[in-house]
């Protein structure tokens, strides 16, 4: 073999991006007197892996909920592909091309892996009452959706649990199924809320590998939240750090890692 050639899997992850896909600017969110987010802003490039990190209670999940439309920002704007979508409903946000997973897995426990992932296709089904009532159009629709879902099952290597009710699966696999459901929506932006929480090292590495593969194979922009800095720093292109609802740092992982404010937020005052 020509060993002098550069090997992609060993190069550092420094990638260049051009287009902005998501711009968050001056967002405020409060619950009564609690200020969850104060003047938070950042930009996400198309095709990157972007992480929001911070200690407990920093406002990470609030931020994700604002992006996915569950919470309304009291001030500030969110632009998607250059268009303002600050006040869009969760359903509209989903149709725009956002998909998410949840910190506490939100799957249909009694349904099989396959059916759970199929539910993700709902936003992609183009049908009406009439066509659903007829045999052939309904069948063709089902076949087309199933084909796509089988691609995801293959991608995530979960063939052996295709027919297993998800409630019977171990935690790490449930997380993977949830990722599958989000992928079934063919999202432009994938929002992952603590995808590695509660996992052992091996499961974390598996999940990190899948996140990288999704980004790589489908070019999906990934925005993920993590509490634990370890794995995230290895796979992210840019990182924003929140603490007490405020943005305290932004940059490539190496800059963020050495930032004094970040160290203070994680380790406390010295």
């Amino acid at each position, binding site marked *: *073999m*020509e*060993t002098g*050639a*550069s*090997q*992609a*899997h060993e190069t550092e992850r420094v990638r260049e991006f051009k287009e902005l896909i998501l711009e968050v600017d001056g967002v405020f969110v409060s619950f009564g007197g609690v200020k969850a987010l104060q003047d938070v802003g950042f930009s996400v490039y198309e095709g990157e892996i972007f992480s929001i990190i911070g200690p407990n209670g920093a406002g990470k999940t609030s931020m994700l909920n604002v992006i996915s439309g569950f919470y309304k920002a009291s001030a500030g704007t969110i632009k998607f592909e250059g268009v303002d979508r600050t006040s869009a409903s969760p359903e509209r946000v989903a149709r725009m091309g956002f998909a998410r997973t949840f910190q506490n897995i939100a799957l249909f426990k009694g349904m099989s892996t396959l059916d759970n992932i199929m539910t993700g296709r709902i936003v992609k089904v183009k049908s009406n009452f009439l066509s659903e009532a007829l045999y052939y159009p309904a069948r063709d629709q089902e076949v087309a959706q*199933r*084909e796509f879902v*089988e*691609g995801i*099952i*293959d*991608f995530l*290597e979960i*063939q*052996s649990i*295709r027919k297993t009710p998800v409630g019977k699966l171990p935690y790490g696999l449930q997380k993977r199924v949830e990722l599958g459901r989000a992928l079934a929506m063919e999202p432009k932006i994938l929002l992952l809320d603590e995808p590695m929480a509660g996992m052992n090292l*091996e499961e974390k*590495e598996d999940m990190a590998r899948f996140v990288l*593969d999704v980004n*790589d*194979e489908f070019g999906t922009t990934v925005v993920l939240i993590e509490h634990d800095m370890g794995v995230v720093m290895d796979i992210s292109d840019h990182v924003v750090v929140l603490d007490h609802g405020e943005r305290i740092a932004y940059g490539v992982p190496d800059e963020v890692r050495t930032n004094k404010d970040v160290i203070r937020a994680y380790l406390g005052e010295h």
Partner: protein
Amino acid sequence: MKLDPKLDTFPKLLLNRKQTTPDRPAIREKDFGIWQTWTWSQVVEEVRSLACGLAASGFRRGDKLAIIGDNRPRLYWGMAAAQSLGGIPVPLYQDSVAQEMEYVINHADVRFALVEDQEQVDKLLEISNRCPKLEFIFYDDPRGMRHYSVDHLESYDSLIQEGQKFESENPTYLEAEIDKGNARDISVILYTSGTTGYPKGVILTYENILITVINSLDFDKLTEKEECMAYLPMAWVGDHIFSYAQSYVAGFCVSCPESGATVMHDMQEIGPTYFFSPPRIFENILTTVLVRMEDASWFKRKMFDYFIRVSKRCGIQILQKESVGLIDRLLYLIGDILVFGPLKNTMGFSKVRIAYTAGEAIGPEIFEFFRSLGINVKQLYGQTEASVYITVQKDNDVKPDTCGIPFPDVEVRISEAGEVQYKSPGVFQSYYKNPEATLETRTGDGWVFTGDAGYFDDAGHLKIIDRVKDVGRLNDGTLFAPKFLENKLKFFPQIREAVTFGDNQDHVSAFINIDLEAVGNWAERKNVAYASYQELAAHPEVYEMIRNCIEQTNTDLAKDSEIAGSQIKRFLILHKELDADDGELTRTRKVRRRIVLDRYGSLIDALYSDVNRGHIENEVTFEDGRKGMMIADLEIQNAQVFDHMKKTG
């Protein structure tokens, strides 16, 4: 036997399939949840393009093509493609770590590799510095491969495209190459996993394999209508003969499962008629069945227990078409409808006509369980060096503790030291680049030393006791056959692996590996809390359970005067599973006794002193190849031994 020179290599047989049975299914693979099928004429086209692609990359007569991956149609086609060009396929165990592959690739002078996916590519790239001869890597699954910029690393699809271009420019090249092949050429080099030392490359010619296969088809009346699963490592001679050679000669269809984890389910869908597996698979299936039955409702459990008793009483006689009383026959029929039928269906054995177990001795109880359900499982004694077949059990003439009678055209003799030796058309040519080992194993006139100790019983059936070098004696002269004891222990679903010691000792003692599935399930039902394998293995109630198993074995041993003295006196439960990554098992999961002796010396010493705890520190290898230390203090217990009792009556 003389082979027809028009049909004396696999590529020639394949071309002939296109004439005789072009539209019959040749191979299936489950992909994206659906069984995809290729007919023989489609396979011919695939192999043709692939071979031309290889030729375009410079693959020439005598070149070796390493094949690494799970059972995939494209990898099987890679074998036929290499053979079409007069090359030699060298399948490797797909779960080997990079260092193990390095040895085989260098030793076999491999220039080309056809691999399944990124995982295998990464392993090869890791060792490419140290494998100067390896030039080209082709991969089947493009996933994750987009950003690799390495010279001579190419996808299967682009190889096919090059092949099609090459073929349009050289339309007669391939036929001419195929015509050059003949029966005396090397067909394949199979590396034996080797219980000791480095693996050895067994050279088999087309003649070796084809004559053996033709005999086997005749012996078992196999036709193009068989259905067979290809799920065992492609590097294993069993898979090579059953999933490749026999399929090409008989023309039957081989099905590749979706993934290793879905084999059981895929088997249920295919319903194979012809099945091959090492005893371990049967053990695992039986364990799963027994564990699930313990979880079943009261009524189902009672029904299962009752009809299993019926099947034990008369199932085997019915299978072997012997006379059975009317009442038993009726009960068995009802059992078949209520229990055996559904059970066979779940296991994927509904249509099995012939199933073989080989590679190791199977526990008689396990063997009889399957036969009593009406599944025609038979034992086969074979070796890579013999193109598999040495002795085989004949239909309706099956004794559970023997390996049957010599296979057609095979001569078997027992040496003075009790070693089994054979001579057959399937006997290998030599070990690749290892004349010393060849001389040690094979005489000039073609007799092969198996290293197994055995004898023929009165009916002419071969009985294998153990490895010649492993059979030992206790200090009082009692025969000590470790395999025999270990197989007895492993029949208990709670015991996954056992290693016994006793040669030149005063008594026999044992290491036990618990079966995490079975014992874990038991712990759940008993509300026994545990956080890890290590903790579960050390649990006092688990110790008690295992001691009961051992004492039951001892009761059994006490019945036979020859071996009554080799009852197990002391034992301990290991804190980790014996693992091929640590070198403790071979890739086909046989225990490497010497390495275990070496790694666990301190524990063995403790077993032969009067302490009741043993201390062990060991290096272990994790799945990703990193290493770590594992330290444990293990309890040692005594088991009750019994006096030899003559059977009464």
